[in-house]
């Protein structure tokens, strides 16, 4: 059980890692980099919303905090990109802790909590759009200066591997949590808070740890975004789009499951790209695909893609420990 749980993670990561070796399509690389960034954001969402059951509509808050912490530290203070990255992780965790402290201590749950997260993300979007420090509506543009030390790469393949390495770390962390006492406590809080309390679980503390970790992970995705595009503005960093992506992927892939966010993101965006290539560039066609997939999941497969696998191939599902 110990090592076995990690084998699917290693296999999936290896499979994605060889893509740049067998293809040199820029379109494919861009698709994969973007999908990996979203996967990482969704992995953050999954710990809080999937495993611990505290649904957030506002993970853009953490994504944006990651984006802007990294961008502003580099832009205003010339801080090294890797240092900025670690500080962005801390900022994401701190944002999570503060949001959690305010809402969980007040006993907010379910849709009330979800709405509060949305409100905070929107508040930050408006602030980032208005402040000079964040470059206002024009956003911040970072200097192009490729090199590992600057977390920038000339080759698309290298950046893809970097993003993949981040996702891999996210998978390993999620997997380690799933097999631990902390993971059991997260699930207990999701399933029944009173029962958890009666068994000695400090529910508030568990939720605060979950939201801090979740915030840090999604902030890491924000940093990747900034390092990839060297640009950020409020509608990207704190935009509703990433809140939706971060939430949708785990739902489609398998809520609360280690591989759920990765499988969900690649399913959604894979289908989106396929449709685009068939239907041509009809604006918003990929969003229509998302909507159809979401309706399908809600109506027929509440466990997502991995839930279907469990139903139709339980042996395989068990083997890959989903």
């Amino acid at each position, binding site marked *: 059980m110990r090592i076995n749980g990690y084998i699917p993670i290693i296999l999936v990561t290896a499979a994605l890692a060889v893509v740049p070796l067998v293809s040199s399509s820029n379109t494919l690389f861009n698709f994969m980099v973007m999908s990996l960034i979203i996967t990482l954001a969704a992995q953050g969402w999954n710990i809080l919303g999937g495993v611990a059951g505290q649904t957030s509509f506002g993970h853009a808050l953490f994504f944006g905090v990651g984006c802007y912490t990294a961008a502003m530290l580099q832009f205003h203070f010339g801080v090294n990109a890797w240092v900025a990255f670690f500080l962005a992780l801390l900022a994401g965790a701190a944002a999570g802790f503060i949001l959690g402290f305010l809402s969980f201590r007040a006993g907010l749950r379910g849709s009330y909590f979800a709405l509060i997260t949305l409100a905070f993300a929107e508040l930050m979007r408006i602030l980032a759009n208005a402040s000079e420090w964040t470059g206002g509506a024009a956003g911040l543009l970072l200097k192009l200066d490729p090199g590992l030390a600057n977390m920038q790469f000339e080759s698309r393949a290298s950046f893809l591997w970097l993003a993949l390495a981040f996702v891999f770390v996210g998978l390993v962390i999620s997997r380690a949590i799933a*097999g*631990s*006492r902390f993971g*059991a*406590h997260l*699930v*207990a809080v*999701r*399933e*029944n808070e*009173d*029962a*958890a*309390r*009666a*068994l*000695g*679980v*400090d*529910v508030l503390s568990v939720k605060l740890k979950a939201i801090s970790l979740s915030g840090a992970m999604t902030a890491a995705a924000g940093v990747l975004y900034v390092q990839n595009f060297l640009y950020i503005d409020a509608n990207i960093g704190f935009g509703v789009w990433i809140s939706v992506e971060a939430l949708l992927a785990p739902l489609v892939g398998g809520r609360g499951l280690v591989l759920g966010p990765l499988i969900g993101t690649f399913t959604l965006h894979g289908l989106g790209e396929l449709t685009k290539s068939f239907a041509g560039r009809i604006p918003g066609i990929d969003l229509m695909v998302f909507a159809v997939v979401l309706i399908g999941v809600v109506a027929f497969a509440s466990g997502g893609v991995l839930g279907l696998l469990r139903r139709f191939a339980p042996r395989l599902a068990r083997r890959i420990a989903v």
Partner: protein
Amino acid sequence: MMLSTQTITMRFGGLTAVDQASLRVREGSITGLIGPNGAGKTTLFAVIAGFLQPTGGQVLWQGRDITGLKPHQRAQLGIARTFQIVQPFQGLNVLENITIGSYLRHPKTDEAIAKARAVAERVGLGRELEQQASSLTVAGRKRLELARALATEPKLLLLDEVLAGLNPSEIRDIIPVIRAIRDDGVTIFMIEHVMQAVMNLCEEVYVLAQGQMIAEGTPASVCNDPAVIEAYLGKGAATRIANLGGAHA
């Protein structure tokens, strides 16, 4: 004294659910709490376990005032409760449910699972480990409730009507389990309507009626207490029964 409550009062708005209730639970005993429906028994348990902050009074644990402690802190001290309305982790199987409890004293996953298996075996759930909690029978759910609490390795086990809804043969099966738990050194304080079980198990019984503690003593003595009979059967019942007995003599 392992546990005592001192003049606990619990009000919900205008309703006084528990009214100045005091009791003592001796270490190593099986103590009962009985009383008519709505007497305030579950409310008193919730106060003892920290789920409700009492309007007045104190809860003492081994002489120390724990009224201000949170439920999880009391669980860590060794107070475990079951819920009258069972509260399983619906989406988890039996073993996973119990493991949440055993993690309290066993941070390592392997040890927690091993402990959970042992507890499941003990309460007769050994063959349902993989079954979803939501698919258990009533008797199964009651056993699960007991198993989870037991997995926290408590010093004091608060059982809220774990026999309710079970048929006579299921009750016969579980009574020895409860006695064996006590014989292993766990003090038991149980709310129970099934008098056969109370008579069988309890050394000391408290009777709560309309929030007030109206009697305490051995099961036999409280059952013959006029105040208790009236609480259950209505005013004047005790004299009517006494007259009836006299007529037969």
